[in-house]
């Protein structure tokens, strides 16, 4: 289980590991990266769903800590997150999630990655849909609408329009699908739904594009259900307790 940090976060403390497990010394699971990063939060949500204790080690992306030689030994592409336990060092958030689900199959949410090969296949299918169809237009939109203004460069209106259309078409398919089943891969919440949480949060909160979801009846219902899960709320608390990274 994860306990909330109640002490005030100062800039000093950001550079120290945050211990969020009840028994910090017994947790060998480490996640490197800021909780605000979409890919990092994907892994945090999964660990919470599976009741896995972990230690979050912040990486300051603005200071470029992910490109330093020590970090590149862990993740040679210079990206976050990295996951470590007693047996493995792993990167790529969706691979980490699958590993966590397999390793901790018998605890926490046991249906997160299905209980038989057919269920797993359906979850994998929608996980791939998230990675290949949902994520690309969403990441362009989030970059253009939430990050570009902060960087004081010009937004690309064409790119925004193109990707809003692309995402709209993808969400139309989701609308049909979510009219047939409660969640993407079936009637249970799975990794496939979880994987959508991080970028969707950015879309809704940082880009003001919530109506992409709310204008679609089934997608709106689905978003409401998945974004109000206790585990996702805990991730949000971790994210909100981190002041914005400064150089």
């Amino acid at each position, binding site marked *: 289980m994860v306990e909330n940090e109640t002490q005030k976060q100062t800039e000093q403390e950001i550079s120290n590991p945050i211990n969020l497990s009840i028994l910090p010394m017994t947790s060998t699971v480490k996640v490197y990266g800021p909780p605000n990063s979409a890919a990092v939060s994907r892994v945090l949500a999964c660990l919470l769903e599976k009741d896995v204790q972990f230690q979050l080690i912040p990486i300051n992306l603005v200071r470029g800590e992910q490109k330093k030689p020590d970090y590149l030994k862990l993740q*040679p592409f210079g990206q976050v997150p990295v996951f470590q336990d007693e047996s493995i060092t792993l990167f790529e958030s969706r691979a980490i999630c699958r590993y966590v689900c397999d390793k901790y199959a018998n605890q926490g949410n046991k249906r997160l990655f299905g209980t038989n090969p057919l269920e797993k*296949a359906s979850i994998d299918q929608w996980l791939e849909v998230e990675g290949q169809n949902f994520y690309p237009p969403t990441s362009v939109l989030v970059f253009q609408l939430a990050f570009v203004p902060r960087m004081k460069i010009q937004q690309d209106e064409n790119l925004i329009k193109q990707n809003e259309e692309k995402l709209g078409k993808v969400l139309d398919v989701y609308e049909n699908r979510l009219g047939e089943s409660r969640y993407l891969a079936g009637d249970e919440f799975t990794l496939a739904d979880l994987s959508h949480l991080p970028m969707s949060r950015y879309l809704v909160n940082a880009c003001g594009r919530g109506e992409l979801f709310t204008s679609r009846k089934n997608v709106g219902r689905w978003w409401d259900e998945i974004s109000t899960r206790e585990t996702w709320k805990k991730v949000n608390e971790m994210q909100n307790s981190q002041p914005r990274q400064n150089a």
Partner: protein
Amino acid sequence: MVVKVYGPAYAACPQRVLTCLIELGVEFELVSIDLESGEQKSPKLLLLQPFGLVPAIEDGDFRLFESRAIIRYYAAKYASSSIELLGNTLEERALTDQWLEVEAQNYNPLVYNLVLQLMVLPRSGHRTDMTVVQNCKTKLEKVLDVYEQRLSKSKYLAGDSFTLADLSHLPNTRFLMNEGGLEHLVKERKSVHSWWTDISSRPAWKKVMELNN
């Protein structure tokens, strides 16, 4: 009952699935889809793949789309002592998955854009955007530098054995080496080059190339 694979043999994503099925010795029937006429958006095919993409498979009543989901399913189903495309242990599976995700997230988007700019757009009378091409090439060089580092320590991406992680790279890398005119990106990197020579001479991949011709 054989597995039906929907999609043309010349397209990257169906090739990923066909290679995997042949590696596993799984019988299949290829149902070719005419992408140029938009057959993938026909009502019948949208029932199989609602995003209007290829491939999709039909295995009796079971249906699945997304090539990397399909290959994961069959590799797990037909894992045996003679072929293990997913790794033998939990940790090996995780590394296979990691490099499969690297292909999907770091490699594929760059090559896909190159295919779009260098092949698809010119064919439909549009201009190639050379800035995008140069951008992709620069990023791809950096990605391949990481591959070079990895493959200098490890025979295959996930470890000592050929896995789905290597297989997944076959279609896009073939493009780089051929129509893409970017074989120097591979040939300039010793370990990447030997890895490519190794994986592209596997019988299953050669059979897929025959299907393509």
